[in-house]
């Protein structure tokens, strides 16, 4: 399977890259522009089956086993926010990408790009937070790298983590695995991370006890895979772009439709209040410690029950199902009973006044 290197000349899709001679913030937002960048620049250039699977990590054969390999970079601002920091996020995010492939995390790497002038004390705080997070996830950081860039060129610090994990036999979790009839389980209350970060952002500050839900999900996922490996078709952590973006990606990859029930989506009161205040839809706000599981209908109740036994999953709920209708499109039944499309956003969701 080889593809031509990218050429803008023949681009006919609705989002040709030539329309954006410069990268914008929206290209990193997790919505349409991010997808466009990946689909039209990176995937054709690197051209590998593991990439075209569009999963959170690459699944590669290694002798008799399968390993999962993933990487993520962390540029969150502010560096420290209620319930977390860039360091903990960097560990949890990569652990979770491995977990969403159904892989037990084995080891992590940590790369730092630090701006000249960055406070040593803050770097220590971040590093110690990473160490704590890694110990909490029972995964060691075994290698890394450090670079320093000129003052003004680095916004404090950027962190990259990569992770390696092992996938047990019988476990097959990938976006294309969703099937009509499957149930969609959400492991808990959404949008906490995005709201926690926003609450300390200059120009929008508000007081809240909402903390980021940043957490490692492997030991929430492990018991489900041990007992129901054949029933779990897709695992995905809805990070940037929120639940709506994650489900849209899966619907497109699997060629299926989905219907969610708005009334069943767990959201805590404070997050709801913050979203109402800013005019944000919680379904598009980032999470860092939540998991979507798309599973066979007969096992759905049992799996949801298992998730609820874990402290991170106490508010787990079945929130929708996969359908054969409107493939590639996710729909939402609103609280007043009508059905509407839950589309992929083009860029960041912005607070509104109107």
């Amino acid at each position, binding site marked *: 399977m080889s593809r031509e290197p990218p050429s803008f000349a023949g681009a006919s899709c609705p989002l040709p890259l030539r329309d954006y001679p410069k990268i914008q913030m929206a290209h990193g937002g997790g919505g349409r522009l991010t997808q466009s960048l990946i689909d039209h620049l990176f995937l054709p250039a690197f051209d590998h089956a593991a990439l075209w699977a569009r999963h959170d990590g690459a699944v590669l054969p290694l002798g008799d086993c399968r390993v999962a390999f993933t990487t993520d970079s962390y540029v969150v601002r502010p560096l420290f926010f209620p319930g977390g920091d860039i360091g903990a996020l960097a560990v949890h995010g990569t652990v979770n990408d491995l977990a969403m492939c159904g892989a037990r995390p084995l080891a992590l790497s940590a790369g730092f790009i630090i701006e000249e002038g960055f406070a040593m004390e803050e770097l220590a705080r971040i590093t110690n937070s990473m160490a704590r997070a890694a110990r909490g996830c029972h995964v060691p950081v075994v290698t890394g790298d450090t670079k320093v860039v000129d003052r003004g060129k680095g916004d404090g610090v950027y962190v990259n983590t990569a992770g390696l994990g092992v996938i047990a036999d019988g476990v097959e979790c990938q976006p294309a695995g969703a099937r009509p009839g499957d149930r969609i389980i959400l492991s808990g209350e959404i949008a906490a991370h995005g709201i926690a970060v926003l609450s300390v952002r200059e120009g929008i500050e508000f007081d*809240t006890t909402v903390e980021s839900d940043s957490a490692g999900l492997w030991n929430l996922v492990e018991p489900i895979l041990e007992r129901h490996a054949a029933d779990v078709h897709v695992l995905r952590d809805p990070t940037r772009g929120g639940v709506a973006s994650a489900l849209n990606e899966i619907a497109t990859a699997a060629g299926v439709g989905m219907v969610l029930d708005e009334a069943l989506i767990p959201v805590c009161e404070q997050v709801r209040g913050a979203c109402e205040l800013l005019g944000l839809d919680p379904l598009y706000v980032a999470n860092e410690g939540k998991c979507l599981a798309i599973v066979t209908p007969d096992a759905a109740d049992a799996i949801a029950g298992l998730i609820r036994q874990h402290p991170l999953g106490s508010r787990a709920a079945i929130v929708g199902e996969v359908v054969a209708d409107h493939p590639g499109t996710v729909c939402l039944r609103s609280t007043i009973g009508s059905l509407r499309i839950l589309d992929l956003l083009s860029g960041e969701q912005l607070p509104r006044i109107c």
Partner: protein
Amino acid sequence: MCLAVPGKVIELRDDEAGVRMGRVSFGGVTKEVCFAYLPEASVGDYVLVHVGFALNRIDEQEARRVFELLDAASDLHEARTDPSSGEGGEGVW
């Protein structure tokens, strides 16, 4: 226009310029809000907030009137569709 959200007043004070300010809770999330246009607000009131300003106090009684209209309109509809009923006429509005 426009996004204005109801919240509960939890604190009120004057700032250094003599402008009335306060904190309002939206489902537990609190934000600094300017009360220059609602000086009569009290702690415990529900107010509508738009871009950081309290614009109006929500009248509890009027808030319930929405449901009175709903009932009146609904009863009227039932009266019309129920041939045995002799009731009719305009509602409270």
